[in-house]
């Protein structure tokens, strides 16, 4: 099993997957969204570095989900 720790603000959860999930899959996971409280407008960081949607997360990964900033109109 692939285990990934996901933090969003003050909340954290650990999920197990049968295969390495991609960053994009994590962002689209409805259950994860409900549990941690995030929406479409997010970015996923590993050690402070934003990761692309296609990246597959290895076992033991710890990621942080942040709301992405908007820009002034």
């Amino acid at each position, binding site marked *: 099993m692939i285990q990934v720790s996901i933090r969003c*603000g003050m909340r954290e959860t650990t999920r197990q997957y049968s295969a390495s999930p991609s960053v994009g899959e994590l962002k689209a996971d409805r259950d994860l969204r409900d549990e941690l409280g995030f929406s479409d407008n997010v970015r996923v960081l590993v050690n402070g570095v934003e990761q692309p949607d296609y990246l597959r997360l290895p076992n*033991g990964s710890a990621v942080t989900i*942040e*709301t992405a900033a908007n820009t002034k109109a």
Partner: protein
Amino acid sequence: MSEYVLKSTGRVFRRQADIVIPGETEIEVNPSMINAMVPKSRVKLSNFMPSPYGLVGASITEQETIFSVRLFNLILNCTIAIGDDGSASPTWQHSGTFVELIWPVPDTMKLFYCARVTPFGTTYKIHSAGTYLFALGVKNRSYRLPLPNIYDDGHICTGVGDVVMHSPVEAFLDCLTRFMKSQWNADLANEPMRTRAAQLFQFKVVPDGFKALAAPKEWASLCWEASNSVLEGIPAL
């Protein structure tokens, strides 16, 4: 005797440490074991320093210090509209007559002002996008309040550039004081924000000024969920 080696690749090896030529065997480990092997370099200090607006906490690593202060009152220095019934509500205009409204934070909300300070040569810097306002609700879900000078990710539009000072504390207190005394205006305001703010920030005219009305119990429904890694820097609540 065995020793366990966490390599830069994130893979863990077991090594026979009591023989002259060590042999390594890669092993499967739980991530919690990896976490236990990584040096814990973050130091958190709760309420280590007073400020005019609350006790300050800090979270310190080699790369940055995150300061946070829990606010029990939010000062809204803004333009207002007064209704015939004596109600008063912020209008968030750029110009006009500004008044200072004191909004008591509801009991069910923990409101934090945070700033990320980084070393900058021999000084310390808070980036222009390095200060944040977050409301924490049930189960520590984090929210952005419907205010006009806050970006989606919770960072505050301060109207000034980077702040550089000779000490991290000095930089934080400068930004905190500026935040509490600044005027709120229509930058980043939009209709959804205005609609929600009108329900959350309600006041009435009283003989000596303005009095806040109790915020709705379901205040979270008037905010947007938002998060940033700066929240990890808030010491234990």
